[in-house]
């Protein structure tokens, strides 16, 4: 912005305030006159919008009103809460702390019951993420992961119940397959995309479902991945609160969709380590599915069958 022009404008306004005409003040700034003229004319117009005087009736009326108000205040007819002068800062601080504590607790409690699409749902997921990061014990971490996995299933069921359309991502057990309509942990899903090696996914397999709920009460699948094949010893399907793992002859522990807390608590020194191995095995299977799914599925099922054979 041109500082000379700004200063010249102010100087011209001051001169005009002292009664000089527009043309006479512009004569002092011939090189800026073209730019200054419209601004000074606008200034004159802006000043013309101001009233010259206030109607005397208004002033008298308001002055009388002010005196009456002052009298009322003096006589205590209008309460102005003197205590606020002294206690306001303390009350404000205590109120702020109280509201902060109560609202943070309240919000956290409320967010725990939120489902995808709710305002507080991102907070719920953030809290879960933080909980996972704070847990250093691997067994406890697995318990949390399974708990959160169950929550995703319950959230999806809630979305279906209220017919809300939202993106979902959950892990569950295939409990029935009828063409493109499957039942995964009690959730009806419709396979709308070509699933690689879908012939390898069978009833009892754990799968990760990504898709979206729709108004018909189903989940339209946009991506499907196998996370764990069913084992011969795994006697039941679906998400359950009962233990579903059976100790293997070799001492390995196996995971189903929802192992209970007790099933994940190490009972001897090698068990937790085995669980980590199993988890890594699952992750490697998922990665394999993404990049070279065919071989991975085949290998994993073969391994599982081999274990069953043992």
């Amino acid at each position: 912005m041109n500082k000379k022009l700004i200063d010249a404008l102010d100087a011209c306004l001051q001169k005009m305030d002292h009664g000089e005409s527009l043309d006479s003040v512009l004569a002092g700034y011939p090189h800026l006159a073209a730019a200054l003229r419209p601004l000074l004319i606008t200034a004159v117009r802006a000043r013309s919008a101001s009233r010259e005087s206030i109607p005397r009736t208004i002033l008298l009326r308001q002055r009388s009103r002010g005196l009456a108000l002052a009298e009322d205040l003096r006589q205590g007819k209008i309460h102005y809460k003197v205590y606020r002068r002294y206690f306001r800062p303390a009350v404000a601080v205590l109120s702020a702390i109280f509201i902060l504590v109560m609202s943070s607790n309240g919000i956290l409690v409320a967010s725990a019951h939120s489902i995808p699409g709710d305002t507080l749902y991102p907070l719920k997921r953030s809290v879960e993420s933080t909980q996972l990061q704070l847990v250093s014990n691997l067994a406890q971490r697995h318990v949390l992961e399974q708990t959160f996995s169950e929550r995703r299933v319950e959230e999806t069921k809630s979305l279906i119940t209220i017919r809300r359309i939202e993106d979902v991502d959950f892990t569950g057990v295939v409990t029935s397959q009828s063409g493109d309509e499957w039942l995964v942990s009690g959730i009806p899903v419709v396979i709308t995309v070509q699933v690689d090696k879908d012939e390898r996914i069978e009833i009892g397999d754990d799968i990760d479902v990504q898709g979206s709920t729709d108004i018909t009460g189903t989940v339209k699948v946009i991506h499907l991945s196998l996370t764990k094949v069913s084992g011969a010893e795994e006697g039941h399907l679906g998400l359950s609160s009962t233990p579903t793992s059976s100790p293997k002859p070799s001492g390995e522990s196996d995971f189903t969709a929802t192992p209970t807390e007790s099933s994940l608590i190490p009972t001897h020194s090698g068990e937790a380590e085995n669980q980590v191995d199993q988890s890594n095995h699952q992750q490697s299977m998922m990665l394999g599915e993404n990049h070279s799914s065919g071989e991975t599925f085949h290998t994993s099922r073969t391994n599982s069958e081999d274990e069953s054979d043992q």
Partner: protein
Amino acid sequence: MDDYVLTNHYPIRLSMIDLHLEYDRQGDLDAQAITTIYSHYFPEIFHYVQYRLSDDMLAEDISSEVFFCWLKAVKSGDGPAKNLRGWLIGAARHLVVDHIRRKYRHPSEAISDAIKSDEAGPSELVEHCDTSHILHTAISQLTEDQQQVLALRFGQGYSLEETADIMKKKINAIKALQFRALNALHRRIGKENE
């Protein structure tokens, strides 16, 4: 070519220091002090609000509320310790902005304009539409700071120093703001006239 003259029609204001001393001595809302302060400042506040809103009835109501707030503040001991005019203008500004926000949320309040138009005669109506209405419409489209600087500099006739003091900005900032406000108003008036 028309020659423009910037007439200064503002009444001579009392010294702020004198009023402040009188106001301090009369912390218990002495009638004489209130009369003096009302006589001195009510027109200024009224002018300010009227300039911002272009409505006499609203200007009276809001100015009245400003002084009621001041009386309550003085009685409770929270009144301004210095610069009473700045305090009153600041309170008026808040109330004006509140009113504009309410009006924006509830546009039906604009019925007051219709009432005012009915009261005006034909010649006044034509004049109002041709000049004042266009000007106030253009001003209302500026930013809040630009409206404020125009109201204080050209509506109230305050100096750069007084305006800077009330707006809590440096004088150079007020100069630049004034320049931008006049530029923007010039463009707006040009559009309104097209």
